[in-house]
């Protein structure tokens, strides 16, 4: 099981801000594919330019293995403060 968080526009697209995904997907990309399979619009939004991912609060580039209990955040382009 992993915890998924959405920030910014992504949340408007998905209609949720936080959910649990079970069982734990093997990798970050597998998680993205699973979310996209359930919600095409969200899948497109996650693939858009400027969207970043953080696993356990650290930015991640490319794919990465996910451990059970991981916190995965998808970050829309940041607004600045």
């Amino acid at each position, binding site marked *: 099981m992993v915890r998924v*968080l959405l*920030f910014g*526009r992504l949340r408007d697209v998905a209609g949720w801000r936080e959910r649990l995904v079970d069982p734990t997907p093997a990798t970050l990309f597998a998680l993205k594919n699973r979310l996209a399979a359930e919600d095409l619009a969200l899948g497109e939004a996650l693939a858009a330019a400027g969207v970043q991912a*953080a696993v356990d*609060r650290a930015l991640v580039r490319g794919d990465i293995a996910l451990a059970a209990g991981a916190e995965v955040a998808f970050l829309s382009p*940041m*607004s*600045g*403060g």
Partner: protein
Amino acid sequence: MVRLQSEAFDPGALLSGFCQGREETGAVVSFTGIARGGAGAVTRLELEAYPGFTDAEIERIADAARTRFSLHDVLIVHRIGEIAPGEAIVFVATAAAHRREAFEAADHLMDYLKSRAPFWKREHGPDGARWIEPTEQDRSDAARWD
């Protein structure tokens, strides 16, 4: 120190505390960012952070600035949640031996905060809500320090 908070704050109270007991600090610069009403176009601002991530990112930049500009101290307070026009959104204070370092550090930290800090910001107005992204000016201001 870096603090994210949903409560309104008084920039003056923060500055008073920050200036206290500094016998070897010659210069304190503060920046206060205030939510603008845009003559009625903006009724409120909504600012979201990712707790544990946003504060850690800002802390990292503050630490780098401390070294780069030989700061005696730095304080960053940032509002999150709902903010009304006229309210302070962000307060940055820098303390240094001389004014040049204090000015540059505050300027640099604000450029970073405005363009690269992990916040998501929405303006609400009579015509609905819109997400804000950094302006070209914000991006080029931040690039001055790279």
